């Protein structure tokens, strides 16, 4: 188990380092950092001083190390378009994205898994077929369109729910703000979470259904039936358990997808999160912001993948056995 963790962590570091390199290249070579810092009117002497202060005369490798050091302590530069430290911006916007993503994931899983199980167990019912057709369409629907349709129906025509912003938020501790504690905050969460979660939900539903059908065809289920076990036991204690294993992996990896699509949902609903930030950074060519976002993403994803691998190992005894064997052999 130990070597496995070490391996995965080193992989994570590799990815983060790669992203950091890309970031560094962006920052260093796009435009002129000096120009961006001191403006057009500065004299040559001032420019030279700035060059030395920024360490631009040092060898590239050294600069990269300085960059890494800066990232490690959280100094990510100053945003061109907002004029404030990038790290502060990221920190401010993070809660919004996290809350949105988590709610969307909850929607997707709490609806998707039961629906998937149900359509697998009741293959021939009309509702099953209807759900499958709907899920088929769901895969072809772009997320932004879902959001727009929701806004049209629930905000414009019915006027029930807000179509932009987070509503009133409450600050928790020093850095976190949440919209979960106010009515307007909760209302504002509904449409974006549904939009973000809907696509995932159809995916999860189809995945659970397919997996469950596969599992129900296996020999061990056949043997369980031959032993006369009640169907509830077979469906839930046996089949569901075996179904959930690959599903857990996929759901874990879907967090990454949710995060990516949150950018779109934030654009549609003007949700003040990281996604909106990155779009603005592209539109305004805000290099420090974009570069920092790259590193953050790489780190986040690598972390998610690591977590999923570890959870998988915890659930499936066969994976644990493989790991102990490889450890004994290596």
């Amino acid at each position, binding site marked *: 188990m130990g070597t496995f963790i070490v391996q995965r962590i080193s992989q994570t570091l590799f*990815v983060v380092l*790669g992203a950091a390199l890309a970031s560094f290249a*962006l920052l260093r070579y*796009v435009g002129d950092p000096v120009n961006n810092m001191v403006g057009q009117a500065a004299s040559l002497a001032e420019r030279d001083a700035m060059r030395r202060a920024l360490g631009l005369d040092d060898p590239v490798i050294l600069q990269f190390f300085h960059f890494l050091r800066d990232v490690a302590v959280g100094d990510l530069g100053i945003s061109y378009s907002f004029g404030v430290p990038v790290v502060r911006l990221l920190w401010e916007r993070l809660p919004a994205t996290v809350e949105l993503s988590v709610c969307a994931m909850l929607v997707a899983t709490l609806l998707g898994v039961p629906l998937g199980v149900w359509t697998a167990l009741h293959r021939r019912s009309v509702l099953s077929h209807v759900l499958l057709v709907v899920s*088929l*369409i769901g*895969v*072809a*629907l*772009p*997320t*932004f*369109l879902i959001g*727009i*349709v929701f*806004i*049209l129906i629930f*905000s*414009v025509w019915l006027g029930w729910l807000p*179509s932009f912003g987070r509503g009133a938020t409450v600050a928790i501790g020093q850095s976190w703000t949440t919209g979960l504690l106010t009515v307007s905050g909760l209302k504002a969460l509904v449409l974006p979470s549904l939009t973000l979660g809907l696509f995932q939900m159809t995916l999860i539903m189809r995945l659970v259904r397919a997996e469950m059908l596969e599992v129900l065809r296996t020999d061990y289920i056949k043997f369980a039936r031959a032993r006369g076990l009640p169907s509830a036991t077979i469906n839930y204690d046996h089949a569901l358990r075996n179904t959930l294993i690959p599903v857990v992996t996929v759901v874990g*990896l879907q967090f*990454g*997808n949710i*995060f*990516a*699509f949150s*950018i*779109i949902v934030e*654009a*549609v609903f003007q949700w003040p999160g990281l996604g909106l930030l*990155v*779009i603005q*950074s*592209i*539109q305004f*060519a805000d*290099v420090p912001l*974009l570069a920092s976002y*790259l590193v953050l*993403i790489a780190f986040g*994803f*690598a972390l998610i*993948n690591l977590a999923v691998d570890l959870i998988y190992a915890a659930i499936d005894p066969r994976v644990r056995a493989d790991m102990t064997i490889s450890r004994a052999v290596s």
Partner: protein
Amino acid sequence: MSAQSVTKPEPAPRWWQDDLLHDFLRSPVALTAALLTVAIVAIAVGADVVAPYDSNDPASANLIDARLPPGSIGLIGNRYLLGTDPLGRDMLSAIIFGLRTSLMVGAASVLLAAAIGITLGLICGYFRGLLDTIVMRIADLQLSFPAILIALLIDGVTRTVVDRGTHDRLAIPVLIAAIAASYWVQYARTVRGLVLVERGKEYVLAARVTGVSPLRIIATHIQPNVMGPVFVVATINMSLAILTEATLSFLGVGVPPTKPSLGSLVRIGNEFLFSGDWWISIFPGAMLVVLCLAVNLLGDWLRDALNPKLSDG
């Protein structure tokens, strides 16, 4: 000690008895999807002829007719079946031309992704070695990130690097490249897997031993076996590519304003939702959904049908 008998070969079925064709012709879903796809592609290709008004001609935009609802008739008697956009352009025409752009970008990215993926897959699978390890490592890493994010970041970073002036000119090539870069992996992996299998077979070993050049071996033996599965990947990929382009254009980092696609049309209409002018966003969106649905259904059916089936007995 068991009971066995001698095998006897059976005559091969004729092509009109072919299972695939049989299933296709008897499945209403597949037929509808195929017809729909063909119709859509025909409309897009013949946009200049089919569309009632030429969207690319600035003269067709009548500001006075701006934001008219579907079915209206304009000031000088123009019929706008699906309404008009904020500049007074006919929505139906805009959608048809937008459809063409969407299809073109989608198809181009799929082709590019396939080209890159197949080439890399063939080389890595056949020659193995360091290149194989590096490319597959990168592929694995890339797979852990969502494609849309990769496309967005590549597109975004390129825009940041390129100066403002050349943005519009390079927008579409960059877009195609970005989308292709996010989807090549599936092709490469599929092809590489197949190449590894074929490579181990005796006839390939024989060809290598007799000194046939690798290029010939790949072209004559390996490549024909690879095309089927690649085609399957491409059908899945097509709707994803179209959706990715639509999303990027909706976010404002896709096609330039001079050449709108279905996604950017939705973007334009987004501002007017609250004024109640829903048609500017919804119609292009609906067209997008129909397109993706048709491609998806066709692809789904194709994949199911190409799966090895249980034979009777």
